[in-house]
């Protein structure tokens, strides 16, 4: 952190984002990532210094729209081939652990 120590997100923010991403961070890691993420955000914030009020918002870097395909079917892949590499399977499906929040 050579420029400044400005932290525009808190350790709580980082902890929350980590939990959403199912990352189990210890306190040292939280500390370190808070500093690093802040630096990234401060860098991105530089953009706010440019006046872009005349430009329409961009949703995509490519100046493309309406990339479509026709509604025609093609062969799917073999179930056996896919299931054989699944971590766990049933006869016809992917087996997953009991799902939290459901009975």
């Amino acid at each position, binding site marked *: 952190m050579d420029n400044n120590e400005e932290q525009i997100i808190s350790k709580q923010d980082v902890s*929350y984002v980590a*939990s*959403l991403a*199912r990352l189990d961070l210890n306190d040292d890691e939280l500390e370190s990532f808070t500093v690093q993420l802040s630096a990234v955000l401060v860098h991105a914030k530089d953009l706010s210094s440019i006046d872009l009020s005349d430009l329409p918002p961009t*949703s*995509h870097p*490519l100046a*493309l*729209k*309406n*990339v*479509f*395909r*026709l*509604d*025609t*079917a*093609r062969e*799917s*892949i073999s*179930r056996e081939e*896919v*299931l054989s590499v699944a971590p*766990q399977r*049933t006869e*016809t*499906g*992917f*087996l*997953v*652990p*009991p*799902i*939290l*929040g*459901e009975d």
Partner: protein
Amino acid sequence: MEEEVYEPVIGLEVHCELKTITKLWCGCKNEFGVEPNTNICPVCLGLPGSLPVLNEQAVKFAAMIGLALNCEVKPSIFHRKNYFYPDMPKDFQISQYDQPINVNGFLKLDKNVTIGVVRAHMEEDTGKTTHIGSSGRIHESSGASIDYNRAGVPLVEIVSAPEIKSAEEAKKYVSELRAILVATNTTDGKMEEGSMRVDANVSVRKIGSIEFGTRTEIKNLNSLRSLVRAIDYEISRQINVIKNGEKVKQETRHWNEDASTTVPLRSKEEADDYRYFPEPDLVEVDLGNDIVRQLKQSLPVMPLERRQRIIELLKNPNEDSAFIVVDLDLDGLLLEVVKQGADAELALKRFSNEFAGYVEEVKALQPERLVELLNLEQTGQLSATQAKAVFAEMLTTKSSPSQISTGLGFGGLEDSELSELLKGIISNCPNEWNRFKDGDGKVQQFFIGQVMKATKGQANGKVVLSLLEAMKNS
């Protein structure tokens, strides 16, 4: 009634699967009821390196739904909705967020009631999860088996404004919406197969209050019946919570049909934070005015208007029967037979009952034949029972109704024969006859029954009754 102090506020989210041939992002077939995991590929399995390519037909169907619901069709983009749940193998669902394809529409329930449609956006369906109990085949662990055939099937989610005022009105909204969607031929609207799924947002507030109460979202509403029962249950549950001095908790609840209750789903950890961000693998969709105009012109006449065309013909409007006839797509034929001289009231009655069980067969009949049948009944030449028997024959033979009727021995009894028969019955049953003459309406069935017995059901009840009346007055 203290209950009357509160009023419910209901909003509905309806998901419908589009009737495309293939999925939304890949060329796997969009099929219901096939072997699990047979319509899968790297795209809909979310394998690394695979990329989605948007199905043009799905976009057109979505726009048609929006247009049928009086929405503005706008340029739109897709977002990723992030969550960890094995029904989405990518760990996100591609949906539309702040720039949906359709906004600001409405749905008319009848002449007086209109419900706002906030938006109707596109998204992909998820895989199907089947829970495996610990007593199931998989003995080492209970878990869930996932079928990804449905993952990536195109959906449109239609979000109503919170303007629905009762469970019955919610039912009416869903019925009307379903009728519209089916008419546009964009979806098959089968709630029982899950191609149309409804979530209800329910809250209650004191009458006169402008602010909304805290709402709950009810899931697992698999039929119109569950919809009505679940909403009614939830309204009274919330009123009770408030009356007990407690607060309604904002949560998702699951309708349990067997127990007839809603139960809270254990809240998934911070499940409400989906961290939407624009899907970088897809670009903007903008159908443009010309295509939108073409799609609008391609829309059929909407069910409400079709029902109206029937109702206009009637002396006594019967909305329910008209609904059935339009729902079965028999209204065109009904209008034709009325135009050719059949009585509208009788035609509607038969179309919505007897004919309703044989839609395809009835459509294959010449309208003239139906007109003839209805006229035979209308003029009393056939009783209702006889007309039904003739109708049944018409489905399997090419003969005309009058030929069939003669063949079955119907209509062979002249009034004079019936009169003679009646005179005999009357002289054998003087007591009943006296009661009839004294105005005891119940005895008329007795006489009709006697005549039917003597004629083996070939007499026309209406004719018998008019003969009886004539004899009484003579």
